[in-house]
C-alpha cells in the first residue's frame, strides 16, 4: 500500500507550511540580493580575505578536534559514574548550548584575566603576577572548547545512554574490560554521530562572534564575523563587509552541503540514565579525574560571573534607566523570537509530516535550514542593507529585524528537534488517526502536542536563550535607544565600567539558567495536565 494512503489529508497544513517556506526563502533571497547589489556598486576594499579565511578556519578546526576529544572523554565519564547530583551536573553541561558566548568569554576573563581570580591569588600567595595569555588564539580556543565540548558531551552521552540493555548485559557477562568495552560497545554508537556533530561545532566556531570580539585581542586573531562587524561599524568599509559576507556564506554553504548526508542532531536529549554496569579500577579513577577537571573548567567561569556580578553593583546599575530599557528590550525580543520560532517550526514540521513526497518535504524544510549558512552578523548586514534600500531608517526597523532574525537563526535547531517526531507520529499513527476520523486540530491537541510539548519547551528555551545572548544581530542595529543586555554589557566593557558588565553578565546567566531549566518543565507539565 502506498505510504500516502496512510497519512491523513491535511491540505491546510501543507498550504501554511509551503507559504511560510516561500516567505522564508524570499527573505533569504532579498538579503542576498541586497548584499550582492551593495557588492557591485561598492568601491574597492583593502580587506585581506585570505588571511581571515585561514585564521577563521584554523581556529574552527582546532576547536572542533579538541571539543570532540574532550566531549567524548566527558560523555564516557558521565555515562559510567553514578553520584548524588548527577542530574544537576548533566544539566550543567547541557546548558552549554544556550550559554551565551559573551558570558563564557567574560567568565574566562574573570578567572584568568589580569584582574582575575587566578592572578589575584598568585599575587596574594607569591607576590608574582601570573601572566596567562587569555587574549588571542588560546583564549578563543579555551572559550569555544568550554562551550562546544560540553555541548558535544551532552549529545554523545545521549548516544551512550541509548545502547540497548541487552548489549550491555552481553558485554558484561563476557567480562569485557574498560578499554574493550569502549572500543566494542561504545565506539560504534559514538562514531556515526561524530561527523554531523563535528560539522555543527565547526560551523559554530567558524561563525563565532562575541567570543572572538572579546578575546581576539586585535586584528591578528580576527575572524570573518568580527571583520564584517569591524568593517561596517568601525572602518565604514561597506565594500569590504560585503565581500567578507559573500565569502562567509559560500564557505558555510559548502560545509552544510558537504555534511547534509549526516543525521541531524536534535537539541532535545531527554533525561540521562546511567547503565548498571560500571567500570572498575583505573578506568573509574580516570573517569573521576575527567569529570572533576571538566566541572572546574566549565563551572568556574560561571561561578566567577555570579560571585563578581551579584553585589552592591546591582543597586548602582538599577538606578540607570538605560539598564531597564535594555532588560525590557531583551525580554520582549527574547519572548517574541521564541514564540515565533516555535510557531514557524511547528507549522513547517507539520507540513513536512503531512506529505509522503520526499521532494516536497525537502522543499518545505530547506529554506529554514538555509539560515545555517547565513551567520548572525551576515544576516544582520543583509537586513541592514535591505532596510536602507527600502528607504527606512535602521533604528525604526531594528526591533522587528532583531526579533525576526533571532527567530530565523534558531529555526534550524528548532526544526531538527520537532520535525522528526512529527514525521514519526504521522508515519506510525497515520492509519489510526485516519480510521478514527480525527481532524487536524484534534490530531494536534490529542496526539501531537502531548508527545511534543516537552521538546517544544526545549525549543522555546533554546530560542529565548539564543536571542537573549545575541550580539551578532543587534551589533549592527543597536542604538542608544535600542539596546539589549549583551550590547549594554559590551558597551560597559568598552567604557571600562567592568562592575556594570559583571552585573549584567550575572543577570543574563541567571535568566539563561531559569529559562533553560523551567521552560521545558512548564511545557511538559502543560501537556500532562491536558492529558
Amino acid at each position, binding site marked *: 500500500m502506498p505510504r500516502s494512503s496512510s497519512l491523513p489529508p491535511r491540505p491546510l497544513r501543507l498550504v501554511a507550511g509551503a507559504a511560510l517556506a516561500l516567505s522564508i526563502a524570499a527573505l533569504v533571497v532579498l538579503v542576498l540580493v541586497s548584499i550582492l547589489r551593495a557588492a557591485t556598486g561598492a568601491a574597492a576594499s583593502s580587506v585581506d580575505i585570505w588571511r581571515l579565511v585561514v585564521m577563521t578556519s584554523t581556529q574552527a578546526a582546532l576547536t572542533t578536534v579538541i571539543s570532540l576529544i574532550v566531549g567524548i572523554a566527558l560523555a564516557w565519564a558521565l555515562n559510567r559514574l553514578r553520584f548524588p547530583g548527577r542530574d544537576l551536573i548533566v544539566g550543567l553541561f547541557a546548558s552549554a548550548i544556550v550559554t551565551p558566548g559573551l558570558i563564557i568569554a567574560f567568565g574566562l576573563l574573570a578567572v584568568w584575566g589580569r584582574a582575575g581570580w587566578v592572578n589575584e591569588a598568585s599575587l596574594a600567595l607569591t607576590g608574582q603576577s601570573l601572566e596567562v595569555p587569555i587574549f588571542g588564539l588560546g583564549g578563543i580556543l579555551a572559550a569555544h572548547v568550554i562551550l562546544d565540548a560540553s555541548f558535544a558531551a551532552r549529545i554523545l552521552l545521549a548516544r551512550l545512554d541509548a545502547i540497548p540493555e*541487552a*548489549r550491555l548485559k552481553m558485554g558484561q*557477562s563476557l567480562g569485557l574490560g574498560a578499554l574493550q568495552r569502549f572500543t566494542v560497545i561504545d565506539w*560504534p554508537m559514538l562514531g556515526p554521530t561524530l561527523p554531523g556533530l563535528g560539522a555543527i561545532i565547526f560551523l559554530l566556531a567558524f561563525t563565532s562572534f562575541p567570543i572572538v570580539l572579546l578575546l581576539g585581542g586585535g586584528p591578528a586573531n580576527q575572524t570573518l564575523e568580527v571583520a564584517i562587524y569591524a568593517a561596517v561599524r568601525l572602518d565604514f568599509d561597506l565594500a569590504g563587509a560585503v565581500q567578507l559576507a559573500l565569502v562567509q556564506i559560500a564557505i558555510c554553504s559548502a560545509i552544510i552541503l558537504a555534511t547534509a548526508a549526516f543525521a541531524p542532531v536534535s537539541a532535545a536529549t531527554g533525561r540521562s540514565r546511567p547503565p548498571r554496569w560500571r567500570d572498575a579500577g583505573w578506568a573509574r579513577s580516570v573517569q573521576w579525574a575527567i569529570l572533576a577537571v571538566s566541572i572546574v573548567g566549565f563551572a568556574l567561569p560561571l561561578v566567577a560571573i555570579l560571585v563578581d556580578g551579584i553585589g552592591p553593583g546591582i543597586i548602582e546599575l538599577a538606578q540607570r534607566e538605560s539598564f531597564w530599557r535594555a532588560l525590557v528590550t531583551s525580554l520582549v525580543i527574547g519572548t517574541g523570537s521564541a514564540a515565533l520560532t516555535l510557531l514557524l517550526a511547528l507549522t513547517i514540521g507539520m507540513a513536512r509530516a503531512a506529505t509522503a513526497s520526499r521532494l516536497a518535504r525537502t522543499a518545505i524544510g530547506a529554506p529554514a535550514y538555509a539560515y545555517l549558512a547565513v551567520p548572525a552578523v551576515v544576516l544582520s548586514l543583509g537586513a541592514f542593507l535591505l532596510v536602507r534600500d527600502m528607504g527606512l531608517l535602521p533604528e525604526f526597523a531594528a526591533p522587528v529585524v532583531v526579533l525576526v532574525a533571532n527567530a530565523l537563526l534558531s529555526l534550524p535547531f528548532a526544526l531538527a528537534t520537532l520535525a522528526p517526531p512529527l514525521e514519526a507520529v504521522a508515519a506510525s499513527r497515520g492509519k489510526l488517526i485516519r480510521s478514527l476520523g480525527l481532524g487536524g486540530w484534534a490530531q494536534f491537541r490529542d496526539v501531537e502536542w502531548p508527545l511534543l510539548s516537552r521538546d517544544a519547551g526545549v525549543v522555546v528555551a533554546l530560542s529565548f536563550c539564543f536571542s537573549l545572548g545575541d550580539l551578532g544581530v543587534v551589533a549592527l542595529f543597536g542604538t542608544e535607544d535600542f539596546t539589549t543586555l549583551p550590547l549594554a554589557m559590551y558597551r560597559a566593557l568598552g567604557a571600562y565600567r567592568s562592575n556594570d558588565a559583571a552585573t549584567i553578565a550575572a543577570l543574563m546567566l541567571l535568566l539563561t539558567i531559569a529559562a533553560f531549566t523551567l521552560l521545558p518543565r512548564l511545557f511538559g507539565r502543560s501537556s500532562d495536565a491536558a492529558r
Partner: protein
Amino acid sequence: MLHADRLAFAHPGAALRYEFSFTAAPGEITAISGQSGSGKSTLLDLVAGFLAPSGGALTLDDRNLLPLPPEQRPVSILFQSETLFDHLSAARNLALGLPSGMPAAEARARIAAALVEVGLPGIENQRAATLSGGEKQRVALARTLLRDRPVLLLDEPFSALDDSTRGTMRDLVRGLTERQGWITVLVSHHADDIEALAARRYRLADGHLVEQAI
C-alpha cells in the same frame, strides 16, 4: 545442579515481590514460561547477576553464586537480539568468548572448530551485520561453546526466527546441552518451543514458579 531457593526481588516502586525457587539439572533443558511482564527476564537477570536479590539462595553444585559479579558467574546468555556486535567479524565476536592471552593459532583453531560445531564453517571473516538472524544465533551459540560455562541462559532466543531456522536452532541447543552437559534454562512464552525442548517445566505466575508435569 543449579538451585534457586526463594530467590527474592522487587523492582523499586512495584508492589509485586518475586520469590523464585527452582532446580535445573545438567544435560537437560529447564523451561520457564509465563505471560509478558510476569518476571521471566527478571529471573534470568538474577541468575546472571545483573540484579541483586533481596533474599534467598542461588547455588551451583552447592557453590554460592550470589557474591559473584556477572562476568565471574559460570553462566552464558543468549538473548532474542543483540547477541553479537554487528560491526565485528564472526571470528572477533567469538574471540570475545576466549580467555585473554590465548596464542593466536590456538584461538583460530578453536574458533574454526566452534563454527563447525554449529554448522557454519568458514564464516570467520564475515561481518556479523551481514549474517541472518538464525546465523547470528548460531554464532552466539558457538561463543557459548568457547566460553565453556556450565549454565546456559536462553532469553526468548527463537522468537525472531522463522519456522525452519527455529527447528535447526532447537536441535542445536538440545544436542549441545546433552553433549556438553550444560544446565540450560530456557525462558519463553512459545508453547511449541517448550514442548519440543523441556525436560523440566515451570510456570511463572504472581511472582512464583510452579513446577508443571511433562
